[in-house]
């Protein structure tokens, strides 16, 4: 590959003891097994594989929310400042006592950036970018599942991160909302060109959204594929023959790797 690598994982492993307390087995479980993989700068990479294969653990390692047992993770050419790596969780995970706007502004407040007015203005721009301008002052219990996930996406982008990590962010949504939010993510990526790593177990989602796809099984990256589908991409691409062709290829890879 000729692209610049933004994030490189070098021989990363994560181990933990099998069982806990009285149920401790004395055995060691390898959640991530000697993984070396690079994620291209300003591209969307997908980590795909069955449940429990280690996708989320790898994402948490990149975010620094968990430490590897061995190996290292490097960020190339990224400014070293707080808020440079953002995370979108599987659930929207909003603070229920804060409005959508306040939830979006939260990372800026935690990082101590700007004054209250600056933070509010900046958060409002992001709320508008995710098409929720008229719901800015609503509390999470007044928002639908899709709206909450939009707020979560806006919150992640409010610090203008270079790296956006997404842990199955649309998994809990129905197909219609999933495709709407997929389109929204593509639009935001076009505007901002962040490096994104998307964890998913949805093959169609990986085909539509990612430049590169890494198949993971039992803690190892078993195959990396460049996505040949053209850019810019839209939902309509799903109806084209070449989408179906690549979908089939990826399905075969996953089936054979398992």
């Amino acid at each position, binding site marked *: 590959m000729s692209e610049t690598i933004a994030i490189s994982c070098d021989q990363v492993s994560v181990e933990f003891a099998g069982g806990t307390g009285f149920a401790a087995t004395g055995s060691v479980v390898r959640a991530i097994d000697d993984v070396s993989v690079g994620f291209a700068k300003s591209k969307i990479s997908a980590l795909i594989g069955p449940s429990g294969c280690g996708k989320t653990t790898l994402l948490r390692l990149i975010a620094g*929310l968990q430490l590897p047992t061995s190996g290292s993770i490097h960020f190339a050419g990224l400014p070293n400042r707080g808020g440079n790596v953002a*995370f979108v*969780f599987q659930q929207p*995970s909003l603070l229920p006592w804060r409005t959508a706007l306040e939830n979006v502004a*939260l990372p800026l407040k*935690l990082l101590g950036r700007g004054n209250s007015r600056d933070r509010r203005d900046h958060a409002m721009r992001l709320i508008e970018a995710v098409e929720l301008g008229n719901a800015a002052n609503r509390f999470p*219990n007044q928002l639908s599942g899709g709206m909450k996930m939009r707020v979560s996406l806006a919150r992640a982008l409010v610090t203008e991160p270079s790296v956006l990590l997404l842990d199955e962010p649309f998994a809990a949504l129905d197909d219609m909302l999933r495709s709407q939010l997929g389109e929204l993510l593509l639009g935001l990526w076009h505007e901002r060109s962040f490096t994104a790593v998307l964890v998913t177990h949805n093959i169609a989602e990986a085909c539509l959204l990612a430049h590169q796809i890494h198949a993971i099984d039992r803690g190892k990256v078993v195959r990396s594929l460049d996505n040949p589908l053209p850019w810019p991409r839209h939902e309509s691409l799903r109806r084209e023959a070449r989408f179906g062709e690549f979908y089939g290829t990826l399905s075969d890879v996953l089936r054979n790797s398992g």
Partner: protein
Amino acid sequence: MRMTLFTKSFWLSVGSVACVAVIVLLFWNLAIFLFDLPAILLPTPWRVLEAAINERSALLEGTLVTGIAATAGLVSAIMLGSGLSILFSQSEVIRRALFPYVVFLQTVPIVAIAPLLITWSGYQFRTVVLVTVIICLFPIINSVTKGLMSIPKDLDDLFRLYGAGRVQRLLRLQLPSAIPDLVVGMKTSSGLAVIGAIVAEFFVGNGSSYIGLGTLMTGWQAFQRTDALIAAIFASTALGLLLFGSINLLAATVLSRWRE
């Protein structure tokens, strides 16, 4: 909200409660008539009402005094309990060292320690408050500590990701997250507060100018004024309901945002 308060279901609830009250009153009267019970054992509801009217100023004053003591004890328990819970949530060593004593405090019968507290603190208002604090403390500490310690993992990760320190995490995440648990503790303790105050008054009131509902009850019991005694029981129930209702109203207002 105000418009929808008196709905059909509200009136249905009020109607059902009123029906049960009428049935109880009928059985009460019937029992007196059938077993020929003397008024000293069980006065008629009408005599209880008469006693309540005749003793209205004593009852009102007693209810007010007990209400102030119960509220002061509850508020003190909320502040002390929340403070201790914050301490427990910030240090595992402190939590492990002190939490067993909190449980111990809960297991000691309040009737057993009330006389000891009177010996130490005297026959006065502050002893009643102290007993109330002790009885109210455990539900508050238990609920608030649980709330402070059970932060959703994603939110905890979010705060870590943006480098939030211990204070930021406590003020912006743990404390607001624990509000619903605090309310649960307050609801439990609000019922206990009136019990604690009246139990303390049984002991405190006998030797001082302090006159709460518990004091009136012991006095009327000594003079075999069963009608006034029952009126005082109703007054204490009304006080408990008022305190519990106030906490519920506060909870409904404050917690509307917390519902996902």
